[in-house]
Protein backbone atom coordinates (compact mmCIF):
# COMPACT_ATOMS: atom_id res chain seq x y z
CA UNK A 1 0.00 0.00 0.00
CA UNK A 2 2.73 2.46 0.98
CA UNK A 3 4.85 1.10 -1.86
CA UNK A 4 1.97 1.72 -4.27
CA UNK A 5 1.59 5.26 -3.00
CA UNK A 6 5.32 5.89 -3.35
CA UNK A 7 5.29 4.69 -6.95
CA UNK A 8 2.21 6.73 -7.79
CA UNK A 9 3.68 9.94 -6.37
CA UNK A 10 6.98 9.27 -8.15
CA UNK A 11 5.13 8.61 -11.40
CA UNK A 12 3.19 11.84 -11.07
CA UNK A 13 6.44 13.79 -10.87
CA UNK A 14 7.77 11.87 -13.88
CA UNK A 15 4.69 12.77 -15.89
CA UNK A 16 4.98 16.45 -14.99
CA UNK A 17 8.54 16.40 -16.35
CA UNK A 18 7.16 15.27 -19.71
CA UNK A 19 5.65 18.70 -20.37
CA UNK A 20 8.93 20.64 -20.10
CA UNK A 21 10.40 17.76 -22.13
CA UNK A 22 7.70 18.28 -24.73
CA UNK A 23 8.43 22.02 -24.66
CA UNK A 24 12.02 21.32 -25.72
CA UNK A 25 11.03 18.61 -28.20
CA UNK A 26 8.73 21.14 -29.86
CA UNK A 27 10.93 24.16 -29.15
CA UNK A 28 13.87 22.74 -31.06
CA UNK A 29 11.68 22.16 -34.11
CA UNK A 30 10.52 25.76 -34.51
CA UNK A 31 12.61 28.61 -35.82
CA UNK A 32 14.83 30.54 -33.41
CA UNK A 33 12.48 33.55 -33.49
CA UNK A 34 9.57 31.62 -31.99
CA UNK A 35 11.12 29.12 -29.57
CA UNK A 36 10.16 31.05 -26.43
CA UNK A 37 6.53 31.17 -27.49
CA UNK A 38 6.56 27.40 -27.94
CA UNK A 39 8.10 26.88 -24.50
CA UNK A 40 5.59 29.32 -23.05
CA UNK A 41 2.60 27.56 -24.60
CA UNK A 42 3.71 24.37 -22.85
CA UNK A 43 4.54 26.06 -19.54
CA UNK A 44 1.33 28.09 -19.82
CA UNK A 45 -0.60 24.83 -20.06
CA UNK A 46 1.04 23.64 -16.84
CA UNK A 47 -0.03 26.79 -14.99
CA UNK A 48 -3.54 27.03 -16.36
CA UNK A 49 -4.58 23.39 -16.42
CA UNK A 50 -2.95 22.75 -13.04
CA UNK A 51 -5.29 25.35 -11.52
CA UNK A 52 -8.41 24.26 -13.40
CA UNK A 53 -7.72 20.63 -12.49
CA UNK A 54 -7.70 21.12 -8.72
CA UNK A 55 -10.58 23.61 -8.78
CA UNK A 56 -13.11 21.60 -10.83
CA UNK A 57 -11.34 19.49 -13.49
CA UNK A 58 -10.72 16.48 -11.29
CA UNK A 59 -14.32 16.55 -10.15
CA UNK A 60 -15.54 16.74 -13.76
CA UNK A 61 -13.41 13.73 -14.69
CA UNK A 62 -13.66 11.54 -11.61
CA UNK A 63 -16.63 12.86 -9.62
CA UNK A 64 -19.88 10.91 -9.42
CA UNK A 65 -21.07 9.97 -12.90
CA UNK A 66 -23.72 12.10 -14.58
CA UNK A 67 -25.28 10.16 -17.48
CA UNK A 68 -22.02 8.45 -18.52
CA UNK A 69 -20.78 11.78 -19.89
CA UNK A 70 -19.02 13.59 -17.06
CA UNK A 71 -18.42 13.67 -13.35
CA UNK A 72 -20.26 16.11 -11.12
CA UNK A 73 -18.05 19.21 -11.29
CA UNK A 74 -19.21 20.56 -7.92
CA UNK A 75 -18.79 17.39 -5.89
CA UNK A 76 -15.04 17.51 -5.29
CA UNK A 77 -14.55 21.18 -6.14
CA UNK A 78 -11.23 22.39 -4.72
CA UNK A 79 -10.48 18.77 -3.76
CA UNK A 80 -12.86 19.09 -0.84
CA UNK A 81 -12.69 16.08 1.44
CA UNK A 82 -9.54 14.66 -0.15
CA UNK A 83 -6.89 16.59 1.75
CA UNK A 84 -5.32 14.48 4.47
CA UNK A 85 -7.07 11.35 3.26
CA UNK A 86 -5.78 8.28 1.45
CA UNK A 87 -3.13 9.41 -1.05
CA UNK A 88 -3.33 6.42 -3.37
CA UNK A 89 -7.00 7.01 -4.15
CA UNK A 90 -7.11 10.68 -3.23
CA UNK A 91 -4.45 13.37 -3.46
CA UNK A 92 -1.83 11.21 -5.18
CA UNK A 93 -4.30 10.08 -7.83
CA UNK A 94 -5.47 13.67 -8.34
CA UNK A 95 -1.87 14.79 -8.88
CA UNK A 96 -1.07 11.91 -11.24
CA UNK A 97 -4.17 12.47 -13.36
CA UNK A 98 -3.64 16.22 -13.30
CA UNK A 99 -0.31 15.79 -15.07
CA UNK A 100 -2.15 13.94 -17.85
CA UNK A 101 -4.58 16.82 -18.29
CA UNK A 102 -1.66 19.24 -18.48
CA UNK A 103 0.32 17.38 -21.12
CA UNK A 104 -2.73 16.64 -23.24
CA UNK A 105 -3.37 20.36 -23.64
CA UNK A 106 0.33 21.09 -24.16
CA UNK A 107 0.50 18.50 -26.97
CA UNK A 108 -1.89 20.62 -29.06
CA UNK A 109 0.55 23.56 -29.01
CA UNK A 110 2.85 21.97 -31.58
CA UNK A 111 0.23 22.28 -34.29
CA UNK A 112 -0.11 26.06 -33.97
CA UNK A 113 3.55 27.02 -33.58
CA UNK A 114 4.78 30.50 -34.53
CA UNK A 115 1.42 32.24 -34.93
CA UNK A 116 -1.13 32.04 -32.11
CA UNK A 117 -1.59 34.87 -29.63
CA UNK A 118 -0.58 33.72 -26.17
CA UNK A 119 -3.85 34.86 -24.60
CA UNK A 120 -5.82 33.13 -27.34
CA UNK A 121 -3.87 29.94 -26.66
CA UNK A 122 -4.66 30.03 -22.94
CA UNK A 123 -8.33 30.75 -23.62
CA UNK A 124 -8.48 27.85 -26.07
CA UNK A 125 -6.61 25.55 -23.69
CA UNK A 126 -8.92 26.34 -20.77
CA UNK A 127 -12.12 25.93 -22.80
CA UNK A 128 -10.93 22.76 -24.53
CA UNK A 129 -9.83 21.17 -21.25
CA UNK A 130 -13.18 22.02 -19.68
CA UNK A 131 -15.40 20.95 -22.55
CA UNK A 132 -13.33 18.10 -23.99
CA UNK A 133 -10.49 16.71 -21.88
CA UNK A 134 -12.21 16.55 -18.49
CA UNK A 135 -15.33 14.83 -19.90
CA UNK A 136 -13.34 12.51 -22.20
CA UNK A 137 -11.11 11.43 -19.30
CA UNK A 138 -14.38 10.55 -17.55
CA UNK A 139 -15.66 8.61 -20.58
CA UNK A 140 -12.49 6.54 -20.79
CA UNK A 141 -11.26 6.04 -17.23
CA UNK A 142 -14.02 6.70 -14.71
CA UNK A 143 -16.51 4.10 -13.59
CA UNK A 144 -19.76 5.00 -15.29
CA UNK A 145 -17.99 6.65 -18.23
CA UNK A 146 -19.56 5.30 -21.42
CA UNK A 147 -16.34 4.15 -23.13
CA UNK A 148 -15.18 2.56 -19.86
CA UNK A 149 -18.50 0.72 -19.59
CA UNK A 150 -18.34 -0.28 -23.25
CA UNK A 151 -15.15 -2.19 -22.44
CA UNK A 152 -12.79 -0.37 -24.80
CA UNK A 153 -9.29 -0.50 -23.35
CA UNK A 154 -7.01 2.50 -22.96
CA UNK A 155 -4.40 1.73 -20.35
CA UNK A 156 -2.54 5.04 -20.17
CA UNK A 157 -4.18 7.40 -22.62
CA UNK A 158 -4.01 6.46 -26.31
CA UNK A 159 -7.59 7.59 -26.72
CA UNK A 160 -8.03 10.07 -23.88
CA UNK A 161 -4.68 11.80 -24.41
CA UNK A 162 -3.23 11.23 -27.87
CA UNK A 163 -6.19 10.78 -30.19
CA UNK A 164 -7.92 13.51 -28.21
CA UNK A 165 -5.04 16.00 -28.50
CA UNK A 166 -4.27 15.08 -32.11
CA UNK A 167 -7.85 15.62 -33.23
CA UNK A 168 -8.02 18.93 -31.35
CA UNK A 169 -4.78 19.99 -33.03
CA UNK A 170 -6.29 19.31 -36.45
CA UNK A 171 -9.44 21.26 -35.60
CA UNK A 172 -7.52 24.25 -34.25
CA UNK A 173 -5.20 24.34 -37.28
CA UNK A 174 -8.19 24.35 -39.62
CA UNK A 175 -9.59 27.41 -37.81
CA UNK A 176 -6.31 29.25 -37.37
CA UNK A 177 -4.83 28.70 -40.82
CA UNK A 178 -1.28 28.14 -41.97
CA UNK A 179 1.86 30.03 -41.08
CA UNK A 180 2.90 32.93 -43.30
CA UNK A 181 5.01 31.45 -46.08
CA UNK A 182 4.10 27.80 -45.48
CA UNK A 183 4.85 25.52 -47.31
CA UNK A 184 7.03 27.52 -49.72
CA UNK A 185 9.46 29.04 -47.24
CA UNK A 186 11.91 26.77 -45.43
CA UNK A 187 10.93 26.32 -41.78
CA UNK A 188 13.56 23.93 -40.63
CA UNK A 189 14.21 23.08 -36.98
CA UNK A 190 16.54 25.58 -35.32
CA UNK A 191 17.98 23.28 -32.63
CA UNK A 192 17.92 19.52 -33.15
CA UNK A 193 19.86 18.84 -29.93
CA UNK A 194 16.86 20.38 -28.06
CA UNK A 195 14.61 17.98 -29.95
CA UNK A 196 16.72 14.99 -28.93
CA UNK A 197 16.95 16.23 -25.34
CA UNK A 198 13.19 16.74 -25.23
CA UNK A 199 12.55 13.27 -26.65
CA UNK A 200 14.83 11.81 -23.97
CA UNK A 201 12.98 13.63 -21.19
CA UNK A 202 9.65 12.53 -22.66
CA UNK A 203 10.76 8.91 -22.75
CA UNK A 204 12.01 9.08 -19.15
CA UNK A 205 8.77 10.65 -17.95
CA UNK A 206 6.72 8.23 -20.01
CA UNK A 207 7.75 5.35 -17.78
CA UNK A 208 5.74 7.12 -15.10
CA UNK A 209 2.93 7.81 -17.55
CA UNK A 210 2.56 4.17 -18.59
CA UNK A 211 3.83 2.08 -15.68
CA UNK A 212 2.34 4.55 -13.20
CA UNK A 213 -1.07 3.98 -14.75
CA UNK A 214 -1.12 0.60 -13.02
CA UNK A 215 -1.72 2.76 -9.91
CA UNK A 216 0.26 0.12 -8.07
CA UNK A 217 3.84 -1.15 -7.87
CA UNK A 218 2.78 -4.54 -9.19
CA UNK A 219 3.13 -7.04 -12.08
CA UNK A 220 1.03 -4.90 -14.42
CA UNK A 221 3.33 -1.93 -13.84
CA UNK A 222 6.25 -4.16 -14.81
CA UNK A 223 4.55 -5.21 -18.05
CA UNK A 224 3.74 -1.61 -18.91
CA UNK A 225 7.28 -0.53 -18.08
CA UNK A 226 9.10 -3.06 -20.23
CA UNK A 227 6.72 -2.59 -23.16
CA UNK A 228 7.39 1.15 -22.97
CA UNK A 229 11.02 0.30 -23.67
CA UNK A 230 10.39 -2.42 -26.26
CA UNK A 231 7.90 -0.66 -28.50
CA UNK A 232 9.75 2.64 -28.41
CA UNK A 233 13.02 1.08 -29.52
CA UNK A 234 11.26 -0.72 -32.36
CA UNK A 235 9.51 2.49 -33.42
CA UNK A 236 12.77 4.41 -33.57
CA UNK A 237 14.28 1.71 -35.78
CA UNK A 238 11.16 1.63 -37.96
CA UNK A 239 11.18 5.40 -38.54
CA UNK A 240 14.93 5.42 -39.26
CA UNK A 241 14.69 2.49 -41.66
CA UNK A 242 11.94 4.17 -43.62
CA UNK A 243 13.98 7.38 -43.84
CA UNK A 244 17.08 5.52 -44.92
CA UNK A 245 15.17 3.80 -47.71
CA UNK A 246 13.10 6.82 -48.80
CA UNK A 247 15.38 9.81 -48.24
CA UNK A 248 18.82 8.21 -48.14
CA UNK A 249 19.81 9.18 -44.60
CA UNK A 250 18.76 8.26 -41.07
CA UNK A 251 18.18 11.61 -39.33
CA UNK A 252 18.29 12.71 -35.70
CA UNK A 253 14.85 14.30 -36.07
CA UNK A 254 13.66 10.93 -37.34
CA UNK A 255 15.10 9.14 -34.31
CA UNK A 256 13.45 11.59 -31.90
CA UNK A 257 10.15 11.40 -33.81
CA UNK A 258 10.25 7.61 -33.91
CA UNK A 259 10.74 7.53 -30.15
CA UNK A 260 7.68 9.69 -29.59
CA UNK A 261 5.59 7.78 -32.15
CA UNK A 262 6.44 4.52 -30.38
CA UNK A 263 5.64 5.95 -26.96
CA UNK A 264 2.30 7.24 -28.21
CA UNK A 265 1.33 3.95 -29.80
CA UNK A 266 2.27 1.73 -26.88
CA UNK A 267 0.50 3.99 -24.37
CA UNK A 268 -2.99 2.46 -24.65
CA UNK A 269 -1.64 -1.06 -25.10
CA UNK A 270 1.35 -1.20 -22.76
CA UNK A 271 -0.28 -3.43 -20.12
CA UNK A 272 -2.16 -5.67 -22.56
CA UNK A 273 0.44 -7.01 -25.04
CA UNK A 274 3.43 -9.35 -24.86
CA UNK A 275 6.90 -8.62 -26.19
CA UNK A 276 6.02 -9.62 -29.76
CA UNK A 277 2.95 -7.43 -29.64
CA UNK A 278 4.98 -4.49 -28.32
CA UNK A 279 7.61 -4.95 -31.03
CA UNK A 280 4.89 -5.04 -33.69
CA UNK A 281 3.07 -1.99 -32.34
CA UNK A 282 6.32 -0.04 -32.15
CA UNK A 283 7.57 -0.97 -35.60
CA UNK A 284 4.20 -0.32 -37.23
CA UNK A 285 3.82 3.02 -35.46
CA UNK A 286 7.32 4.11 -36.46
CA UNK A 287 6.71 3.44 -40.14
CA UNK A 288 3.07 4.59 -40.29
CA UNK A 289 3.75 7.86 -38.43
CA UNK A 290 6.81 8.57 -40.59
CA UNK A 291 4.52 8.30 -43.60
CA UNK A 292 1.64 10.17 -41.95
CA UNK A 293 3.63 13.35 -41.26
CA UNK A 294 3.70 13.98 -45.01
CA UNK A 295 -0.11 14.06 -45.26
CA UNK A 296 -0.21 17.75 -44.35
CA UNK A 297 1.55 18.64 -47.58
CA UNK A 298 -0.95 16.65 -49.59
CA UNK A 299 -4.01 18.12 -47.87
CA UNK A 300 -2.59 21.57 -47.21
CA UNK A 301 -3.11 21.94 -43.45
CA UNK A 302 -0.17 23.43 -41.56
CA UNK A 303 0.07 21.11 -38.56
CA UNK A 304 3.43 22.69 -37.85
CA UNK A 305 5.12 20.06 -35.69
CA UNK A 306 3.04 17.04 -36.77
CA UNK A 307 0.76 16.60 -33.79
CA UNK A 308 -1.74 14.91 -36.11
CA UNK A 309 0.81 12.70 -37.85
CA UNK A 310 2.40 11.51 -34.62
CA UNK A 311 -0.20 11.73 -31.85
CA UNK A 312 -3.50 11.20 -33.66
CA UNK A 313 -2.14 8.55 -36.00
CA UNK A 314 0.10 6.93 -33.38
CA UNK A 315 -2.77 6.91 -30.89
CA UNK A 316 -5.05 5.23 -33.43
CA UNK A 317 -2.39 2.63 -34.25
CA UNK A 318 -1.94 1.65 -30.62
CA UNK A 319 -5.61 1.79 -29.68
CA UNK A 320 -6.76 -0.30 -32.64
CA UNK A 321 -3.91 -2.82 -32.45
CA UNK A 322 -5.07 -3.83 -28.97
CA UNK A 323 -7.94 -5.46 -30.89
CA UNK A 324 -5.40 -7.63 -32.73
CA UNK A 325 -2.52 -8.06 -30.31
CA UNK A 326 -4.07 -7.95 -26.83
CA UNK A 327 -3.44 -11.07 -24.77
CA UNK A 328 -4.59 -12.15 -21.32
CA UNK A 329 -1.31 -14.06 -20.95
CA UNK A 330 0.34 -10.92 -19.61
CA UNK A 331 -2.58 -9.35 -17.78
CA UNK A 332 -5.82 -11.02 -16.71
CA UNK A 333 -7.55 -7.64 -16.82
CA UNK A 334 -6.82 -7.37 -20.53
CA UNK A 335 -8.43 -9.14 -23.48
CA UNK A 336 -7.46 -11.59 -26.18
CA UNK A 337 -7.31 -9.82 -29.53
CA UNK A 338 -7.97 -11.21 -32.99
CA UNK A 339 -4.50 -12.79 -33.29
CA UNK A 340 -4.78 -14.40 -29.87
CA UNK A 341 -8.06 -16.18 -30.41
CA UNK A 342 -10.33 -13.44 -29.13
CA UNK A 343 -12.42 -12.64 -32.19
CA UNK A 344 -13.17 -9.22 -33.61
CA UNK A 345 -15.39 -7.94 -30.84
CA UNK A 346 -12.68 -6.05 -28.96
CA UNK A 347 -11.46 -4.45 -32.18
CA UNK A 348 -14.94 -3.06 -32.71
CA UNK A 349 -15.04 -1.63 -29.19
CA UNK A 350 -11.62 -0.07 -29.63
CA UNK A 351 -12.70 1.53 -32.89
CA UNK A 352 -15.91 2.94 -31.40
CA UNK A 353 -14.05 4.52 -28.51
CA UNK A 354 -11.25 5.89 -30.69
CA UNK A 355 -13.39 7.39 -33.42
CA UNK A 356 -15.98 8.80 -31.02
CA UNK A 357 -13.27 10.74 -29.19
CA UNK A 358 -11.67 11.74 -32.49
CA UNK A 359 -14.93 13.15 -33.83
CA UNK A 360 -15.97 14.88 -30.62
CA UNK A 361 -12.59 16.49 -30.03
CA UNK A 362 -12.23 17.59 -33.66
CA UNK A 363 -15.66 19.22 -33.82
CA UNK A 364 -15.34 20.78 -30.38
CA UNK A 365 -11.90 22.19 -31.23
CA UNK A 366 -13.28 23.81 -34.39
CA UNK A 367 -16.16 25.39 -32.45
CA UNK A 368 -13.96 26.52 -29.53
CA UNK A 369 -11.36 27.75 -32.02
CA UNK A 370 -13.95 29.87 -33.81
CA UNK A 371 -15.15 31.35 -30.51
CA UNK A 372 -11.58 32.14 -29.42
CA UNK A 373 -10.85 33.66 -32.82
CA UNK A 374 -13.94 35.86 -32.59
CA UNK A 375 -12.95 37.12 -29.14
CA UNK A 376 -9.18 37.52 -29.50
CA UNK A 377 -8.43 37.49 -33.22
CA UNK A 378 -6.61 34.19 -32.72
CA UNK A 379 -3.29 34.94 -34.32
CA UNK A 380 -0.69 37.68 -34.34
CA UNK A 381 -0.37 40.03 -37.32
CA UNK A 382 1.56 38.73 -40.31
CA UNK A 383 4.18 41.40 -39.69
CA UNK A 384 4.74 40.21 -36.11
CA UNK A 385 4.70 36.59 -37.23
CA UNK A 386 7.41 37.17 -39.81
CA UNK A 387 9.50 39.27 -37.41
CA UNK A 388 9.11 36.56 -34.75
CA UNK A 389 6.34 35.87 -32.28
CA UNK A 390 8.75 35.86 -29.32
CA UNK A 391 9.25 39.60 -29.46
CA UNK A 392 5.62 40.36 -30.35
CA UNK A 393 4.01 38.24 -27.62
CA UNK A 394 6.63 38.03 -24.89
CA UNK A 395 8.96 41.01 -25.48
CA UNK A 396 11.96 38.66 -25.31
CA UNK A 397 14.35 36.95 -27.66
CA UNK A 398 15.73 33.49 -26.94
CA UNK A 399 19.33 33.87 -28.00
CA UNK A 400 21.84 36.66 -27.59
CA UNK A 401 25.19 35.23 -28.58
CA UNK A 402 27.04 38.33 -29.72
CA UNK A 403 25.39 41.08 -27.73
CA UNK A 404 25.59 43.07 -30.93
CA UNK A 405 22.07 44.46 -30.88
CA UNK A 406 22.73 47.29 -28.49
CA UNK A 407 20.79 46.22 -25.41
CA UNK A 408 20.61 48.71 -22.52
CA UNK A 409 18.31 48.96 -19.52
CA UNK A 410 15.47 51.19 -20.71
CA UNK A 411 14.18 51.77 -17.18
CA UNK A 412 17.51 53.07 -15.85
CA UNK A 413 19.11 56.49 -16.37
CA UNK A 414 21.70 55.38 -18.91
CA UNK A 415 23.81 58.53 -18.66
CA UNK A 416 24.72 57.50 -15.12
CA UNK A 417 25.36 53.92 -16.19
CA UNK A 418 27.68 54.89 -19.01
CA UNK A 419 29.42 57.35 -16.71
CA UNK A 420 30.15 54.48 -14.33
CA UNK A 421 31.51 52.42 -17.19
CA UNK A 422 33.91 55.24 -18.09
CA UNK A 423 35.03 55.54 -14.48
CA UNK A 424 35.62 51.80 -14.32
CA UNK A 425 37.69 52.01 -17.49
CA UNK A 426 39.69 54.89 -16.00
CA UNK A 427 40.47 53.06 -12.76
CA UNK A 428 41.90 50.10 -14.71
CA UNK A 429 44.59 52.11 -16.50
Amino acid sequence: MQGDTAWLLTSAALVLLMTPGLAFFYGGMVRSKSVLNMLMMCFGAIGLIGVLWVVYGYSMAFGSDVGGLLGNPFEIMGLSGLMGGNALEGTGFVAFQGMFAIITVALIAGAVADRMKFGAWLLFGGLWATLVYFPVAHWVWAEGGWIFDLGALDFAGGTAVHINAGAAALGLVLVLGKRAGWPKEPMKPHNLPYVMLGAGLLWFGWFGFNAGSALSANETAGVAFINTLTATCAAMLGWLLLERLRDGKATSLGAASGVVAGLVAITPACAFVDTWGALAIGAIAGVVCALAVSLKYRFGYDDSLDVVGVHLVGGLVGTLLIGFLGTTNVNADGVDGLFYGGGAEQLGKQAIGAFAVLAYSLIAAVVIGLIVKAITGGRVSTEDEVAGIDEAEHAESAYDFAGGRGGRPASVDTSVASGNAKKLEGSKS
Partner: protein
Amino acid sequence: MKLITAIVKPFTLDDIRSGLEQLGVLGMTVSEVQGYGRQKGHTEVYRGAEYAVDFVAKLKIEVVTDDANVDKVIDAIVSAAHTGKIGDGKVWVTPVDTVIRVRTGERGADAL
Protein backbone atom coordinates in the same frame (compact mmCIF):
# COMPACT_ATOMS: atom_id res chain seq x y z
CA MET B 1 48.03 50.23 -48.32
CA LYS B 2 45.70 47.53 -49.47
CA LEU B 3 42.80 45.59 -48.00
CA ILE B 4 43.00 41.93 -48.90
CA THR B 5 39.69 40.13 -48.59
CA ALA B 6 39.54 36.36 -48.88
CA ILE B 7 36.48 34.08 -48.90
CA VAL B 8 37.67 30.60 -47.98
CA LYS B 9 36.57 27.18 -46.80
CA PRO B 10 36.25 27.29 -43.01
CA PHE B 11 38.60 24.38 -42.31
CA THR B 12 41.53 26.19 -43.97
CA LEU B 13 41.53 29.03 -41.42
CA ASP B 14 44.23 27.65 -39.18
CA ASP B 15 46.68 27.10 -42.05
CA ILE B 16 46.00 30.59 -43.35
CA ARG B 17 46.52 32.14 -39.94
CA SER B 18 49.85 30.40 -39.34
CA GLY B 19 50.98 31.20 -42.90
CA LEU B 20 50.29 34.88 -42.36
CA GLU B 21 51.90 34.82 -38.94
CA GLN B 22 55.15 33.60 -40.52
CA LEU B 23 55.02 36.61 -42.85
CA GLY B 24 54.79 38.91 -39.85
CA VAL B 25 51.19 39.92 -40.41
CA LEU B 26 50.06 41.13 -37.01
CA GLY B 27 46.29 41.11 -37.30
CA MET B 28 43.28 39.99 -39.25
CA THR B 29 39.51 40.04 -39.03
CA VAL B 30 37.54 36.84 -39.55
CA SER B 31 33.76 36.63 -40.08
CA GLU B 32 31.44 33.72 -40.65
CA VAL B 33 29.56 34.35 -43.87
CA GLN B 34 27.24 32.52 -46.23
CA GLY B 35 27.03 32.68 -49.96
CA TYR B 36 27.36 30.80 -53.17
CA GLY B 37 29.49 30.84 -56.27
CA ARG B 38 29.93 27.95 -58.61
CA GLN B 39 29.68 25.55 -55.69
CA LYS B 40 25.96 25.08 -55.22
CA GLY B 41 24.27 24.50 -51.86
CA HIS B 42 23.02 21.18 -50.56
CA THR B 43 19.78 19.45 -49.61
CA GLU B 44 18.54 18.74 -46.09
CA VAL B 45 15.59 16.51 -45.16
CA TYR B 46 13.40 17.05 -42.10
CA ARG B 47 10.64 14.49 -41.49
CA GLY B 48 10.64 13.74 -45.19
CA ALA B 49 10.38 17.40 -46.27
CA GLU B 50 13.34 18.43 -48.42
CA TYR B 51 14.94 21.83 -48.01
CA ALA B 52 17.39 23.22 -50.56
CA VAL B 53 20.06 25.08 -48.62
CA ASP B 54 21.33 27.53 -51.24
CA PHE B 55 24.06 29.22 -49.26
CA VAL B 56 27.29 27.59 -48.22
CA ALA B 57 29.09 28.49 -44.99
CA LYS B 58 32.39 30.28 -45.64
CA LEU B 59 34.83 32.44 -43.73
CA LYS B 60 35.71 35.96 -44.78
CA ILE B 61 39.25 37.01 -43.85
CA GLU B 62 40.27 40.64 -44.05
CA VAL B 63 43.87 41.80 -43.79
CA VAL B 64 45.20 45.32 -44.30
CA THR B 65 48.86 45.44 -45.36
CA ASP B 66 51.32 47.84 -46.93
CA ASP B 67 51.81 47.72 -50.68
CA ALA B 68 55.15 45.92 -50.54
CA ASN B 69 53.66 42.84 -48.83
CA VAL B 70 50.51 42.45 -50.89
CA ASP B 71 51.71 39.66 -53.17
CA LYS B 72 53.27 37.69 -50.34
CA VAL B 73 50.07 37.85 -48.31
CA ILE B 74 47.99 36.81 -51.30
CA ASP B 75 50.29 33.87 -52.01
CA ALA B 76 50.18 32.74 -48.39
CA ILE B 77 46.38 32.81 -48.33
CA VAL B 78 45.93 31.14 -51.71
CA SER B 79 48.39 28.33 -51.02
CA ALA B 80 46.83 27.61 -47.61
CA ALA B 81 43.26 27.76 -48.88
CA HIS B 82 43.85 25.70 -52.01
CA THR B 83 42.36 22.20 -52.22
CA GLY B 84 41.79 22.07 -55.98
CA LYS B 85 38.09 21.32 -55.55
CA ILE B 86 35.18 23.55 -56.44
CA GLY B 87 34.33 26.04 -53.69
CA ASP B 88 37.88 26.98 -52.62
CA GLY B 89 36.90 30.64 -52.63
CA LYS B 90 38.14 34.02 -53.87
CA VAL B 91 40.69 36.63 -52.88
CA TRP B 92 40.51 40.27 -53.93
CA VAL B 93 42.47 43.41 -53.23
CA THR B 94 41.16 46.92 -52.70
CA PRO B 95 43.05 50.16 -52.06
CA VAL B 96 42.87 51.69 -48.58
CA ASP B 97 43.23 55.46 -48.07
CA THR B 98 44.42 55.35 -44.51
CA VAL B 99 44.26 53.41 -41.24
CA ILE B 100 43.99 54.85 -37.73
CA ARG B 101 44.88 53.00 -34.54
CA VAL B 102 42.16 53.96 -32.06
CA ARG B 103 44.31 53.67 -28.93
CA THR B 104 47.14 55.99 -30.00
CA GLY B 105 45.74 57.96 -32.91
CA GLU B 106 48.60 56.83 -35.17
CA ARG B 107 47.80 57.02 -38.86
CA GLY B 108 48.87 55.25 -42.04
CA ALA B 109 51.44 52.45 -42.08
CA ASP B 110 52.37 53.09 -38.45
CA ALA B 111 48.88 51.97 -37.45
CA LEU B 112 49.20 48.55 -39.06
